[in-house]
């Protein structure tokens, strides 16, 4: 084991890999800080640029974007009351009041430190849990795998949107989109309608860029991009050094909140579909309830910022636990990361840990290195990022559209990929407008081939006799959990409830969301 770790360290400590981690974290931080952009968009746009990288450099680059994006989203939440990502809505509750009190630098530093600590703690949990879980997963047969995938889809559909039915329909549409390709058993072209470009399936990047990036640009038309294309630079920095400095005593006072946030983010993050938003809200509620001064929350309590940011960032590595253990993505970002693995010929899951253990160790070490780099990028770059978020939308959006076209061109078989991307931009626009869950859609699309293969194998093994389930108790348990998810969890509406609890003022009134529209898509 130590030999493998030493070898992984050597692989990691190259100029190429470390350089890409720095680049990924910086890009992620920038994108996270920009209102209207998010890390899923950045991942979709930058996936095609990883083609020529080594698998390790590519994965570390993408993970860097993911980590940087989660931390960077606090910048605009604190300075402008506009969350860079939906999960940062909670940060606005106390972050922006701190800015109004002239403590923006203190809030930004606390958010950064909380993000890094949450990130490191969750990465350690990932390293400790992934291998044992993967060992358990290696023994799973197609029947158990089918049941687990069915449970995962149902669970994600039940918790990731406002309507279970819409969630499950989104997932099924994703599964359906994965079917035009060569049939895995006979090798016959299926639903390709004569397009040879579809023999390998609909290109991932055409789907991801169209539905995530370009559709988001189209949605912004509704928000009236005319007239809002410059963000006002009204940051209220304090002249007093005491207000802008974060003392060691203040930092230590926020440690319990950071730890609570980290625990919440890790636990919620590892469950597929629940996402960073819910973890931030739950962490905030927990810290507020445990506080001796709950009346200060919503008025600039540093613990509120610390808890929300620690939870947000802890959920990033935690969400990779099911990816490494059983190859199951639970969020948009992890689904795209899984796509990144696949583009480099790697299949995340138990066999990756068994067959490519050195690479996995190197990725884990790269994740820890990314946490350290995040601290440096955030600390030294904060001044730059606070300026960058004032760049006009009229500059950012056209460049993103251009990058969408180039990205789809690079992977998707030339202009065919670009045309598909335009179609999926329309699809994504209407999915968003009609409140269909994006997470289940993309997870369904990514898992489609695996679901089909395991289902076919299960049917062949069982000879289509459902009684065979009696010999597979694990499958029965997961099928029961799938039914339970659909029946109970969908009725619970977890995120709206957590939001209303977190946003309740001490006087019992609920606070309005800082930017309700930014909470729409998880």
């Amino acid at each position: 084991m130590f030999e493998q770790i030493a070898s992984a360290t050597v692989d990691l400590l190259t100029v190429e890999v470390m350089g890409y981690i720095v680049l990924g974290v910086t890009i992620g931080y920038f994108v996270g800080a920009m209102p209207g952009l998010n890390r899923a968009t950045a991942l979709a746009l930058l996936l095609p640029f990883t083609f020529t990288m080594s698998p390790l450099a590519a994965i570390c680059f993408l993970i860097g974007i993911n980590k940087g994006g989660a931390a960077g989203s606090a910048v605009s939440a604190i300075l402008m009351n506009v969350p860079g990502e939906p999960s940062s809505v909670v940060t606005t509750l106390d972050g922006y009041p701190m800015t109004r009190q002239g403590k923006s630098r203190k809030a930004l530093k606390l958010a950064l430190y909380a993000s890094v600590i949450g990130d490191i703690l969750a990465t350690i949990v990932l390293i400790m849990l992934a291998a044992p879980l993967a060992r358990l997963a290696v023994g799973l047969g197609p029947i158990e795998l089918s049941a687990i995938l069915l449970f995962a889809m149902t669970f994600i559909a039940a918790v990731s949107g406002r309507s279970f039915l819409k969630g499950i329909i989104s997932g099924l549409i994703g599964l359906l989109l994965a079917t035009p390709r060569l049939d895995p058993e006979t090798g016959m072209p299926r639903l390709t309608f004569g397009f040879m470009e579809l023999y390998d399936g609909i290109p991932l990047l055409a789907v991801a860029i169209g539905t995530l990036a370009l559709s988001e640009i189209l949605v912004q038309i509704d928000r009236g991009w005319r007239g809002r294309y410059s963000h006002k630079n009204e940051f209220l920095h304090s002249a007093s050094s005491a207000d802008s400095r974060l003392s060691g005593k203040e930092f230590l006072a926020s440690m319990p909140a950071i730890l609570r946030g980290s625990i919440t983010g890790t636990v919620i993050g590892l469950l597929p579909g629940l996402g960073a938003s819910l973890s931030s809200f739950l962490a905030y509620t927990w810290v507020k309830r445990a506080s001796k001064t709950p009346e200060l929350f919503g008025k600039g309590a540093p613990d509120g910022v610390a808890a929300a940011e620690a939870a947000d960032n802890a959920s990033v590595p935690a969400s990779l636990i099911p990816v490494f253990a059983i190859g199951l993505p639970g969020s948009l970002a992890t689904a795209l990361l899984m796509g990144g693995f696949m583009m480099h010929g790697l299949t995340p899951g138990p066999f990756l840990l068994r067959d490519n253990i050195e690479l996995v160790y190197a990725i884990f070490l790269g994740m820890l290195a990314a946490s350290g780099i995040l601290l440096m990028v955030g600390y030294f770059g904060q001044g730059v990022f606070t300026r960058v978020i004032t760049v006009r939308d009229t500059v950012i959006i056209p460049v993103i559209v251009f990058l969408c076209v180039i990205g789809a061109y690079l992977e998707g078989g030339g202009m065919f990929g670009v045309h598909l991307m335009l179609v999926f931009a329309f699809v994504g626009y209407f999915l968003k407008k009609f409140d269909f869950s994006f997470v289940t859609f993309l997870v369904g699309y990514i898992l489609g081939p695996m679901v089909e293969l395991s289902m076919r194998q299960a049917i062949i093994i069982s000879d289509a006799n459902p009684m065979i389930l009696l010999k597979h108790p694990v499958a029965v348990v997961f099928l029961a959990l799938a039914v339970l998810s659909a029946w109970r969890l969908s009725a619970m509406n977890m995120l709206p409830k957590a939001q209303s609890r977190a946003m309740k003022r001490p006087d019992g009134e609920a606070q309005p969301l800082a930017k309700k529209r930014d909470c729409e898509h998880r």
Partner: protein
Amino acid sequence: MRAVDLVCGAVLCALSLALIFIVIPADNPGGRWTGLSPYFFPIVVAGAIAFFSLALSVQAARQTYSAEEKSPPIAWSQLAMLLLAMAVIIAGVIGISRLGVWIGGPLLIAAIMLFMGERSPVFILPTAIIPVLVVHVLVNQFLGSPLP
């Protein structure tokens, strides 16, 4: 639950049934197979979509909703703006495929900037040229991939 769910469910149900009964039978590759048909999985998934879409419609029909929930999520003006924006983007994409990225790229960026209301050439010119230059160098030199 909005009234639009009723329509949405009905449309999705109709589309998935059309897939099962019209599109899939029309897609005949002309081969033979033993065991499960290559179309087994798409039919199962489309059937499930039809079932859940119908359930969505029934659920929406049985619930009462407020006047606000009855209103469609997309106004006609928004739809017009969407179509206009897509027309600009599609024109830009055609420009890239016909004229190449060197000319089509800046045209696409400049057209979107103008559409968004930007009028200052000080912003339009560098924004239209610099990203194209950077992407061209990155893709050609770094990735070694050709661009249109």
